[in-house]
């Protein structure tokens, strides 16, 4: 018991000792791979941008940013009916911007893992006890708690879910539950319920490459898990910029007008 206490204190001191170094590191934007946040934790820090497969043709490029998995997911009757009723702006059931009922165009959060499909960079910031993902897209944030906690017993459903992470070697395994049912799973209109359970395995396969393996389960919507892999490119010179979804609202109102405005 005394040994465990000693180790806990040592661990805490180590984590605190590295904190000033780590913040300095992030501010200087120097080579993130060389300075871990603790002696054991791999470093995923940096500004990352989704990178589609090289030489992909336009339909595959569009698919990479539209939905997850290579094939149509195995839907339950509830999901089929909900999918048919959706009016997305991407995919085989797509409609025009005037007709779409995709909630993101009213600036509701995209949810997880859909946020990965919106083509803006994300910044990963690691501090003791959590990995923070800051998305340029409408300044969405995910806190992935790595301090060993479990999901809260009585979770309030949220748009982006409740995420906990643990390290398995070089891989951050993220478990996310506690979603509300107000988001779409992807951009082509596939639904999900509040039983959505997303597991991500995130690791740095090269200094400038992040691989995210997704496992999506939702017993109310899908009879089999949906799996997918996305790749992200490190961009050491980039900063996360502002992107405000509400700018879409005035933009889309303008698009309804056929006339080009006189200026």
């Amino acid at each position: 018991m005394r040994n465990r206490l000693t180790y806990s204190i040592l661990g805490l001191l180590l984590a605190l000792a590295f904190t000033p170094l780590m913040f300095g590191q992030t501010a200087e934007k120097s080579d993130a791979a060389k300075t871990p946040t603790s002696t054991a934790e791999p470093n995923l820090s940096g500004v990352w941008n989704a990178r589609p497969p090289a030489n992909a043709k336009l339909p595959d490029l569009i698919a990479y940013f539209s939905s997850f998995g290579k094939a149509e997911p195995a839907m339950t009757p509830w999901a089929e009916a909900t999918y048919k009723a959706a009016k997305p702006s991407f995919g085989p059931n797509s409609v025009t911007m005037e007709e779409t009922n995709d909630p993101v165009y009213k600036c509701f959060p995209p949810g997880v893992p859909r946020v990965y499909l919106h083509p803006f960079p994300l910044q990963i910031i690691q501090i003791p006890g959590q990995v923070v993902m800051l998305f340029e897209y409408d300044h969405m944030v995910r806190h992935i708690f790595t301090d060993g906690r479990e999901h809260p017993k009585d979770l309030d459903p949220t748009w982006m879910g409740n995420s906990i992470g643990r390290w398995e070697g070089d891989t951050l395994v993220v478990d996310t539950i506690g979603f509300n049912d107000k988001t779409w799973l992807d951009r082509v209109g596939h639904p999900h319920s509040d039983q959505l359970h997303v597991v991500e395995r995130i690791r740095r396969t090269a200094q400038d490459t992040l691989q995210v393996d997704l496992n999506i389960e939702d017993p109310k919507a899908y009879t089999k898990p949906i799996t997918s892999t996305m790749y992200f490119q490190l961009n050491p010179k980039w900063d996360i910029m502002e992107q405000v979804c509400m700018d879409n609202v005035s933009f889309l109102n303008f698009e309804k007008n056929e006339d080009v405005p006189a200026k």
Partner: protein
Amino acid sequence: MKTRTLAIAALAVRFLTISVPLFAHHGTASYDTSKTVTVKGTVTDLQFTNPHVLLFLDVKDDKGNVQKWQGELTSPNHLERAGWTRTSLKPGDQITISGFPTKSGANSMFVSKVLQADGTPLNAGLGN
């Protein structure tokens, strides 16, 4: 000056080989992706704001009449990463733009290529 021109040309080549879906913001339904349209004209306005940069041109048709054209580009965030600023194009600039025309037939396109008066390209930001 020559170095900068080369840099812009190099960026344009890079954009041609590494591309992100042109319609990654809001889908393909409004534009006819099977066609390309090209117009040459004079910039009248550049609205360099999110979610999409809008470019307005006066284009002379064969009869000499001025047609008003609109070009939609990607987010200013992507364009800035490709080297643009809000004054990269100014009213009076002579440019040529190419892209996918709207299905409605209006004088509007989703821009994939911008050429300045001297023929040098401006990266349309689609690799970012």
